[in-house]
């Protein structure tokens, strides 16, 4: 997504430069109303859904936002984000099991481990762009998967890490309902951080690099270093989600590192809307809820549904939910003027 501006590929690009900008230009009232709706929805969620599903949605929301930070705002499609999600899941699980620290500390350690892993992988991957970047990140994630699979003494191989505790100063968080509210501030922090990154001068440079890397370079921005920084920040956010996911399930298996997990994260973002940040949160809610419903109703071939979503979204709905909504909003605003 980094080719020069006037190629046909970019002319047909589904994402407007920033769908968020449409909302940003809309009267301030809409933004505050949306924020209020989001806060109410987040506070209500475990009352309307199974709390365990609500916890999953929060984790996947962070994961999706971390992928969108790269895909939507830096123009890099990471197809290997399971490496960071999964690494943090394992590290968080191990720290929680062996060190008995409060769970937010365990998650922080896990996310930092993911960020550390993102440094070498990002350093190598940002040397390529576009489709190559996707292939390189996918390949490195597979390497991490193989290492975890072989390193049985630590990861317990196929059995996975079991009985990950959720300790927090003696509070009883075994009930998913209370655990949801315990992790909500961490997730809110992660989402706010993503918003802050995107709207900082640093974030504007990233968008500049996405839209025209040659010009960004000509203006004197060290493009590789900006991309690497974005990659590491994204790895940290994905790690935050992955660590919470490990605590949420009290169990870590190799699935967290599998390539299907990376792919699912990307499609959640595309479904929600590339480059919209909050679209990924919506996409996470829909996909997690759908998968839970499918497995609950005894449907076996979840891959058929996930794969079908992929195909349909890519063929027919490339703007995604938030992108489409922003477009409608913008048209309404234009009509009013």
């Amino acid at each position, binding site marked *: *997504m*980094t*080719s*020069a501006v006037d190629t*046909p*590929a*970019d002319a*047909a*690009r*589904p994402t407007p430069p920033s769908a968020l900008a449409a909302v940003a230009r809309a009267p301030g009232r809409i933004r505050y109303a949306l924020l209020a709706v989001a806060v109410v929805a987040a506070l209500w969620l475990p009352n309307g859904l199974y709390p365990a599903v609500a916890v999953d949605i929060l984790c996947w929301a962070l994961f999706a936002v971390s992928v969108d930070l790269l895909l939507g705002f830096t123009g890099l*499609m990471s*197809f290997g984000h399971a490496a960071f999600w999964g690494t943090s899941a394992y590290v968080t699980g191990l720290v929680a099991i062996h060190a008995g620290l409060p769970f937010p500390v365990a998650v922080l350690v896990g996310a930092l481990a993911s960020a550390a892993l993102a440094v070498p992988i990002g350093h*190598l*991957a940002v*040397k*390529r*762009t*576009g*489709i*190559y970047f*996707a*292939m*390189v990140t*996918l*390949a*490195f994630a*597979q*390497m991490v998967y*193989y*290492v975890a699979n*072989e*390193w049985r003494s630590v990861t317990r191989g196929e059995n996975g890490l079991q009985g990950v505790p959720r300790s927090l100063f003696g509070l009883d968080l075994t009930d998913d309902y209370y655990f949801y509210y315990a992790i909500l501030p961490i997730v809110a922090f992660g989402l706010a951080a993503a918003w802050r990154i995107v709207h900082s001068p640093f974030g504007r440079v990233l968008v500049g690099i996405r839209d025209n*890397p*040659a010009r960004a*370079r000509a203006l004197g921005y060290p*493009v590789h270093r900006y991309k690497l920084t974005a990659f590491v920040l994204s790895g940290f956010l994905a790690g935050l989600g992955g660590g919470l996911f490990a605590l949420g399930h009290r169990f870590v298996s190799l699935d967290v590192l599998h*390539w*299907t997990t990376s*792919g699912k994260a*990307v*499609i959640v973002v*595309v479904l929600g809307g590339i480059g919209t940040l909050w679209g990924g949160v919506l996409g996470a809610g829909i996909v997690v809820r759908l998968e839970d419903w499918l497995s609950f109703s005894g449907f*076996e*071939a*979840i*891959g*058929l549904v*996930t*794969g*079908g*979503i*992929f*195909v349909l979204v*890519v*063929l027919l709905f*490339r703007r995604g939910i938030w992108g489409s909504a922003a477009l409608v909003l913008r048209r309404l605003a234009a009509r009013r003027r």
Partner: protein
Amino acid sequence: MTGFLQNTFNGLVSGAFYALLALGLAVIFGMLRVVNFAHGAFYMLGAFGAYVLLSEAGVPFWAALVVMPVALGLLGMALERAVIHRLTRLDPLYNFLLTFGLTLILQDLVKNRYGVQSSPYATPAELSGSLDLGLFDFPTYRVFILGFTVLLCVAVWWVLSRTRVGLVVRAATERPELTRAFGIDVGRWVTPVFGFGIGLAGLAGVLAAPMRAVNPLMGADLIIVVFAVVVIGGLGSIFGSVAAGFGIGLVQAWGEAYLSDFPIVSQTAVFVVMAVVLLWRPAGLFGREEAPA
């Protein structure tokens, strides 16, 4: 010395599979700018198709070796016309996602029908046993795979470099706009080339059936390694992709033989090589530089 030659031979045989898959990926990428994630799924369908044909209809290996690639090639052409075609003018990432979705669907269709356990496929009688190659005995079937693959690669090279069709495909690969300006209908070749690439994947699958475990997941893990292979070789270069395929086969076989205490080494060798290539020649060993970014 004999041991070394044996390991080398083994490496070339497993490299042959990488080479066949990488060749198909490279040809398709050249013509359509599509990185086909479903390539591994078609490889799996080739192997599974051969297994189903034999066990349910008694169709022998040799017939499957012709039928499956042709059938899958046609299926590929239908898919290209039906869906992939619609996205080729957009960013290649969309077709990558589309073919990823197709992979999940194809994999689950087979999984639901036949389960995940591996099925054995008997080596054809003519190719069972072993051949005395002077220095050491080698399973006949593996010798066959290597010879067959090398012949096939040479044939593809010959078609691309010595025939008119090859000329058009190479020209369209390098400069599609200019080729069109010369009055050549590039679009006409897109679908057949896609079908051909898919056919190669199916062929690799049929060849793999007697040698490897036939199961619905056999393609997906392999294709990720093949992605690393084409990053190493340079996806734009057909020769580079094939050479990297054989090279990685060798590296893995040597790693397996001489570092057998560390199984992780041979599994991850391809990714380490990829990392080194990215540091040293980011465009791949035989690739051309992309526009700077």
